[in-house]
């Protein structure tokens, strides 16, 4: 019987020609026991090996079905384990990975996208340190897949190392999206300057969401201007000027123009060559230089008005936009548009307040002077025994002051009309020379009183112009009145007319102090007055002149030099030879006076 204590797992039968004595039995028993021990050992090893095989099979199955990518390498870097998740994440089949060097299958990048050398690879570090290494700062890529952010753990073991990793692209993207939205909200709620809002949103979106961002804005005249061009890659920022130049022109059907016109967002997941969105060869070359990979353009809409589009594009990151990105872009554009709208409303309210204050200042100042004259004259008239001549003089003075107040009111009404775009001229064929003479005549006494000579020079053959006679009269009256105001004693004012091509130029030149060059650009602004002439008048005269000339589709220009006087030139189109009869402006009369 072969036993190893318990259990009994066999029996041994001994036979011999002679009988078996006690000594034989003892010997046999000893042999059997040895045999039993040996057999027992073999059986135990087999069982353990089976158990180990079971365990290994379980581990393989577990590794294979794990959601995380798992790969193992030996000390030479040869891949010895490559699970299904690793296949999926890296886009490499197990057969193409197992037995290959890790560097053929996995590329490790830093957060900024640069490639990590072998020494910095988490696997190498784990082996070197002899302890597990964790990282949330790396990107993994493979020959089949662009780099994506991972969370990974590398752990050493006796004959190599094992690497577990998972794709955290979605997590990172959510974080970035939340950060961009938070930054945008902060800007949106803190700034009332529309340019600042747009620039800050562009900066918030780059590089987290886009490699390039810019804004196209539709102006009131329908033109589109491009601004706030931001690149993630500072080395490309010099291309911003080129990008700006490709703001959609009227005859271009670019994605941005379509977005602005229709309000439908635009998503081009993969830009192939740039030809799809380019206007011409230069534009296509620019898109290639930027290396645009994917783009989104979304409308800027506030209170039902589409006033622009914001474009996000990717380049060096290689990221391809999808529907989810479009949703974020739409949300960014919505917040941006609301902020811009708020900023503009605030700006308009601010300007309106300032304009009102200006207006109040003008009304109070310009009405107070004539009111003062009226008040004092009534005091004079009240006095008993005043002579008839004094009475006539005072009444005349009162009348003039009332006319000045009336003129100011008319100027304010004209200004309001120009502001609202309601100032209408009804041009017809008119003899400009006659209007000139008619407008200048009532101003001669004023000029004479100030020892200023007022000269009119109009050739007899000056062609008729297309003009609204009362409005043209107003233009000349304002320009000559202005000249009288600023021309010193013994000066000269020349009012002239001449033909210049298809136009007639009417000019008013004075020998006044002239206008500093820096003041010229603002000369025709509403309420604007040169520092030296501040509060001398309403500041509306030249603004109204400009408004009337514009309504005639004419040109107004000024030539002036400090110390050498000023010349204002109104250019009006010559009337065609046929048409209605010439209107004699004298029969129309001045509009206001």
């Amino acid at each position, binding site marked *: 019987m072969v036993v190893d204590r318990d259990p009994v797992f066999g029996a041994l039968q001994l036979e011999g020609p002679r009988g078996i004595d006690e000594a034989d039995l003892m010997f046999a028993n000893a042999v059997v026991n040895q045999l039993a021990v040996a057999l027992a050992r073999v059986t135990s090893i087999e069982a353990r090996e089976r158990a180990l095989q079971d365990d290994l099979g379980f581990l393989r199955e577990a590794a294979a079905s794990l959601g995380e990518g798992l790969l193992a390498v030996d000390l030479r870097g040869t891949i010895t384990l490559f699970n299904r998740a690793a296949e999926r994440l890296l886009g490499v089949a197990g057969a193409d990975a197992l037995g290959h060097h890790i560097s053929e299958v996995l590329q490790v990048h830093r957060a900024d996208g640069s490639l990590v050398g072998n020494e910095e690879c988490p696997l190498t570090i784990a082996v070197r340190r002899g302890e597990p290494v964790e990282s949330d700062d790396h990107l993994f890529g493979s020959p089949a897949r662009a780099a994506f952010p991972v969370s990974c753990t590398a752990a050493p073991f006796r004959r190599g190392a094992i690497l577990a990793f998972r794709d955290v692209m979605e997590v990172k993207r959510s974080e970035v999206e939340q950060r961009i939205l938070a930054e945008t909200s902060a800007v949106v709620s803190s700034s009332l300057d529309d340019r600042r809002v747009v620039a800050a949103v562009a900066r918030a979106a780059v590089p987290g969401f886009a490699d390039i961002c810019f804004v196209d804005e539709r102006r009131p005249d329908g033109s589109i201007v491009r601004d706030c061009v931001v690149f993630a890659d500072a080395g490309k920022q010099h291309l911003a000027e080129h990008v700006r130049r490709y703001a959609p022109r009227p005859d271009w059907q670019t994605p941005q123009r379509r977005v602005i016109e229709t309000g439908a967002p635009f998503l081009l997941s993969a830009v192939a060559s740039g030809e799809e969105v380019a206007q011409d060869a230069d534009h296509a070359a620019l898109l290639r230089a930027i290396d645009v990979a994917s783009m989104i353009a979304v409308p800027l809409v506030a209170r039902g008005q589409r006033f622009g589009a914001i474009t996000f594009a990717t380049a060096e990151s290689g990221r391809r936009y999808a529907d989810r990105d479009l949703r974020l872009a739409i949300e960014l554009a919505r917040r941006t548009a609301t902020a811009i709208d708020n900023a503009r409303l605030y700006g308009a309210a601010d300007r309106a307040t300032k304009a009102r204050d200006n207006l109040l200042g003008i009304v109070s100042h310009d009405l*107070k*002077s004539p009111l003062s*004259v009226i008040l*004092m004259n009534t005091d004079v008239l009240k006095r008993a025994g005043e002579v008839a001549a004094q009475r006539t003089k*005072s009444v005349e*003075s009162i009348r*003039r*002051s009332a006319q000045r107040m009336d003129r100011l009111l008319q100027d304010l009404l004209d200004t309001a009309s120009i502001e609202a775009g309601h100032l209408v001229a009804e041009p017809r064929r008119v003899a400009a020379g006659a209007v000139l003479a008619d407008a200048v005549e009532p101003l001669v006494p004023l000029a004479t009183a100030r020892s200023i000579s007022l000269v009119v020079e109009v050739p007899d053959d000056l062609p008729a112009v297309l003009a609204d006679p009362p409005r043209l009269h107003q233009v000349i009256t304002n320009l000559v009145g202005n000249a009288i105001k600023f021309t010193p004693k013994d000066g000269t004012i020349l009012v002239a007319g001449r033909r210049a091509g298809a136009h007639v130029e009417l000019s008013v030149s004075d020998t006044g*102090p002239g206008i500093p060059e820096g003041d010229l650009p603002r000369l025709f602004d509403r309420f604007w007055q040169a520092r030296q002439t501040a509060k001398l008048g309403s500041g509306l005269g030249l603004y109204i002149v400009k408004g009337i000339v514009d309504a005639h589709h004419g040109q107004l220009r000024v030539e002036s030099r400090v110390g050498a006087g000023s010349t204002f030139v109104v250019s009006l189109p010559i009337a065609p030879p046929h048409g209605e009869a010439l209107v004699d402006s004298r029969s129309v009369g001045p509009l206001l006076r």
Partner: protein
Amino acid sequence: MSVWCGDDGGEPRPVVLVIDDDHDSCEVIGDILGHLGYRAVAARDGAEALRILRDERLHPAVIVLDVWMPNLDGFELRRTLRAESAWSTIPVVVASAAPLSDHELAQLHPDAFLAKPFGEGALEAALHRVMSKRVP
């Protein structure tokens, strides 16, 4: 130089220099001054006023000064007057249609201030005030 009320051969009248670019203002102020027993001389801006003071050697008893004028405004003229010993003691009544800040008012050193519109009574009171303070 415009004079509305010359000497009538009797007691010489104190002269008031009225500086205002508004012709009607000058005229009616001149009328009232004549009635109040002054002789008014008008200048349409600071430059003309200086010319009258310098070239015509006019030494007015009082100056009535508007603030905003072309060529030489009230501020500039006042600086010039204060810098010249012969003119620095002439009392100045500032008459302005535009509201003036404290800073602007301080620059003008007015002996009296009239805010337009004002009537005969206010002008008379202002003149009376500065004439009574005047060093004979």
